[in-house]
C-alpha cells in the first residue's frame, strides 16, 4: 500500500492509503477532519474545497497521492490557536451567510482564496462569478455575497471600493 506525507493545518502526517484514495477521503476518513464535506460525485458543488499550497482546490477531484509534500489547509485550521476566527468566518456569521452549514466550509475556503486573488477589489458581479463552483441550496447566495464583500476590506486592510 502506498503512503503519502503531507502537512495538514500545520501538522505533518504520513498515511498508508489505497492508491485510489481521494484527498477528501484522506482528510475525512484517515485524519478525521470531517469539516470538509462531500456534496456530489462530479466535482460540481464545492463542498469539499480546501487550500493546497495556498490555492483553493476541490479535494474530491484530487488523489491523495497527488498531495504528496503539500501544505493543506482545511476549515478546521482557519481560526487562530486562541480561537480567534478568520475574518471570513466572522463575516459569514455576521451576515447570516449560512443556514444548514453544509456548504459553508467549502464556501469559506473558496471565498478566502477569491478575496486574496483579487487585491484590486471586487464587484458584486465578480464575487458571484467567482462563486460559480460552489453550490448552496439554502441561502439563495444573497448573504454569502454580502459576507465576502464585507470580509474583503478586513483581509486587505483597506476599503473595498469596487463592491456594491
Amino acid at each position: 500500500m502506498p503512503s503519502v506525507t503531507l502537512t495538514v493545518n500545520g501538522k505533518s502526517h504520513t498515511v498508508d492509503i489505497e492508491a485510489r484514495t481521494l484527498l477528501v477521503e484522506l482528510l475525512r476518513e484517515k485524519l478525521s477532519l470531517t469539516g470538509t464535506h462531500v456534496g456530489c460525485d462530479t466535482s460540481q458543488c464545492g463542498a469539499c474545497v480546501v487550500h493546497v499550497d495556498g490555492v483553493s482546490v476541490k479535494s474530491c477531484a484530487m488523489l491523495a497521492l497527488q498531495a504528496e509534500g503539500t501544505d493543506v489547509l482545511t476549515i478546521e485550521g482557519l481560526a487562530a490557536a486562541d480561537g480567534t476566527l478568520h475574518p471570513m468566518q466572522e463575516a459569514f456569521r455576521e451576515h447570516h451567510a449560512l443556514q444548514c452549514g453544509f456548504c459553508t466550509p467549502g464556501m469559506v475556503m473558496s471565498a478566502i482564496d477569491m478575496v486574496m486573488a483579487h487585491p484590486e477589489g471586487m464587484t458584486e458581479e465578480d464575487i458571484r462569478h467567482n462563486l460559480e463552483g460552489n453550490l448552496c441550496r439554502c441561502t439563495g447566495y444573497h448573504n454569502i455575497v454580502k459576507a465576502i464583500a464585507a470580509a474583503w476590506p478586513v483581509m486587505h486592510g483597506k476599503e473595498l471600493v469596487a463592491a456594491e
Partner: protein
Amino acid sequence: MNAIFEGIGASVRRKEDLRFISGRGNFVDDINRPGQTHAIIKRSDRPHAKLISIDTAVAKAAPGVIAVFIAADMEKDALGGIPCGWQIHNKDGSPMAEPPHPILASGKVRHVGDPIAVVIAETRQQAKDAAELLDIVFEDLPPVATVRDAVRPGAALVHDGVTGNTCFDWHIGDKDLVDAAFARATKVVKLDLTNNRLVPNAMEPRAAIGEFDPMSDDYTLYTTSQNPHVIRLLMGAFVLHLPEHKLRVVAPDVGGGFGSKIYHYAEEAIVTWSAGKLKRPVKWTCDRTEAFMSDAHGRDHDSTAEMALDAAGNFLALRVRTLCNMGAYLSTFAPAVPTYLYATLLAGVYKTPAVYAEVHAVFTNTVPVDAYRGAGRPEATFLLERLMDVIAHDTGHDRVALRRQNFIPADAFPYQTPVALNYDSGDYQTTLTKALEYAKWDEFPARRAAAAAKGKLRGIGISTYVEACGIAPSKLVGQLGARAGLYEVANVRVHPTGSVTVFTGTHSHGQGHETTFAQLVSDQLGIPISQIDIVHGDTNKIPFGMGTYGSRSLAVGGSAMVKAMDKIITKGKKIAAHLMEASVEDIEFKDGKFSVAGTDKAKTLAEIALTAYVPHNYPIEELEPGLDETAFYDPKNFTYPGGCHVCEVEIDADTGVTTVVGFTAVDDVGRVINPMIVEGQVQGGVAQGIGQALFENAVYDDQAQLVSASFMDYTMPRADSIPNILVGTETTLCTHNPLGVKGCGEVGAIGSPPAVINAVVDALRDFGVRHIDMPASPQKIWSIIQAGRPQMAAE
C-alpha cells in the same frame, strides 16, 4: 433584564453558526461508530423489469465482504414494507390503490434506482467493488415514463392489479355550482400548464448508520431526517416490528431537507435491520447520482385550469383538472401533496365563489414523488397566478387591477373558501401595494425602454399568493386521511441554577431553531439566550414530536413551548407565593422575576428554580419538587401566510438567456421573531423558485431513464444566476396561536415561480406569447424569439 435586546423581533446572530463555520458540525456522515461496516445499495438501472434471478455468490466471496442481503432475506424475517402515511379516497368513496412498497425490490423493479440488494463490507470501496459482482438477470418490461403515458389505454401496469395505473381519482368542491357558473359566464379563459418535476437536492446527501447493542437489545439509527420520531414510529411499528423503547433515532446536524428528508426511506430500515443481523454498526452514505434516483422528487403536475368571468372581470368559478405523478411507489406523504396541500389552495387570494378540482394521481416507472418545499401550494400558486396573467392577456384587463378587483378584502377575515380552508387573517391589498412600491413598478416602462435601447427584452411580473402551513390540526387532518396527529411537543427544563434546556420535537436543518426558539424562551422567561439551549433530533432525549415540514416549527412547536413555559410560570408563582408569604393571586411574573404586586418583594427565576430542586422551605404538601414541564400543542387551524412577489427579467434576444435583474418579496408571515432569519428563509426559497422557473428540470426519456441525474445535467441555481433578493414583511397576526406567527419556510418557493414566468412572458409580449411552461430555458425562449422576430422592431 437583558443588556442587549435579544427577544422577539431582534436579528440575533445565530447560536449554531460557530460550529458550522469552524468545521465542527456533526452531520451523519461525520459520525463513525466502533466496529462499523459499510453498506452499498445495488440499484436497478432498468426502469421496469422482472427480476429473474440474483446471484450473490461471487460478491459474497469478494475481499472484505461481510454480507449481501436481498429481498428474500428480509422476507424470512417477515419485515413489513415501507408504509404510506396518508390515505386518500376516490370520488366514489373507495380507498386509493396502495400497492406494496418493499424495502428491497421483490419480483420486479419499478424505477431506475429501485434498491435490489445491499452489500456490506469492511470498507466502502470493498462494498462498492463487490456490488459490481452481483449477477442480476432481468426481463425488461415496457416502461411508463410520464403521467400521460400512464393513462394511455393499454399502458403497461407499474403494479399488477392497479388498473390504469391509477392511485386515486379524487375531487373537491361543488361541481354543480361550478358548472352552473360556467353556463352563465360571459367569458371563459382556459390554460393548460405543467408544473415541472424537480429534485430537491439538499446539499448534504442522505446517510444512515444502524447500530445494535446485544447487551440491551437496543437499536440506534442515525439518519438525515427532518423528523426522527416519525421515522421511529414508521420504521419501528410497520417495517422492523421494533417497539419504541428499543429503538432510538438520532437526526443530528442535517444539511438541508426541503421536504426530501421527511420520508421513511428503505435505506434506514436496511442499515438498522442489517446491524441487528451482523451485530456490528452499518453505515450508508448516498452518492449524489444515487440521490438523484432515490430521494423523493417534487411537483410533476399536468393541469388544465378554466376561469369563468362576468362582463366586469369578476371571477365566477374556477374549474381545474390535474394529472399528477406518484412515481413508482407511494412515499410517506405523497397522496396529501396534490390533494389537501394543493387543491384546497385553489381559491388563492381571490373571492371566487365556486371552485371544483379533480385530481387524478397515477403510478409511473419513476422515482417516488412527494413534498418538496411548498408541497402543493407552489403548484396551486403557479396555476392561479399564470391564469391571472392569461386572463388579463385574453380580456384586456390590467393584471394588477384584475387581481385587486378579485382579492378577498382585508375586512372579510375569517374567510371561508369554497375548498375547505378557513383563512384566519391577511391583507393582500397591502402586501401588493408595498411590493409594487419596493419594486418601483410604476417606473418600469422607462427601464424597459432603456433595456430595449441595449437590445434587451425586459419584463416584469407579479404573483399574489396565500398558502396554508403550520401543519396541522390533528382532528382535521385525520378526517382528510392522515394516519398521524400533527401536534408538537416541548419539554422546558429549568435547571436548579436557572439555566434552561428546551427539548423540542421539531428539527432544525438550516432554519436556525437554536436561535429563534432561544429568543422566544428569553422573551417569555426573561433570561439571556446564553442561558438557554435548544435540543432537537434525538428520540431518547425528546418526549415526542412530529418534526419539521410545512413551516410548522414555530407555529406549532413554538406554541408548545409557550404552553410549557406557562406551566413553568404557574408553578413558579406557587413557589414564590410560599417563599414570600403572599397569596398566589398577588404574584406577578415579568422580566424573569416573580414579585408580590404592590411591594418590592421579588424572587428571580433562578431562586425559584433552586427552591424547586432543594425544597427545604417548600409547599411540599401541594406541589411536587422540580421545575420541568412538558406540553403538547395541537393547532386549531392551519396558518395562512400570503404576500406578493415581483420579478424583473432581462432577456438576451440573441441567445434566449434570461437574467433575473430584480426580485422583491413582500410576505405576511405573521409575527417575526428574528427578521434576519426570516429574510434568509425567504431568499433561499425564492432562489429555489427561480431555479424551478428558469433552470431546474428532472427529465425522463421515453424509456423512463432519468437523464438529468447529476449536477452536470440538472441545472442548480448558482451565485451568478440569482439576483439580490429584496425582502419585506407586512404583518397580520395569526389569530389562533399564542404567538400570532404563521411560518416563513416555504413562502419564497411558493410565491416566486409564477412571478418569474409572468416576467418572462411580459418581456416577450411583442412575440404573441400567452404562456411558457417551466423551466423557461434559453432554447424555449430563443425559439419563440426566432418565430416572432419581425415584430421586434416595434418596441
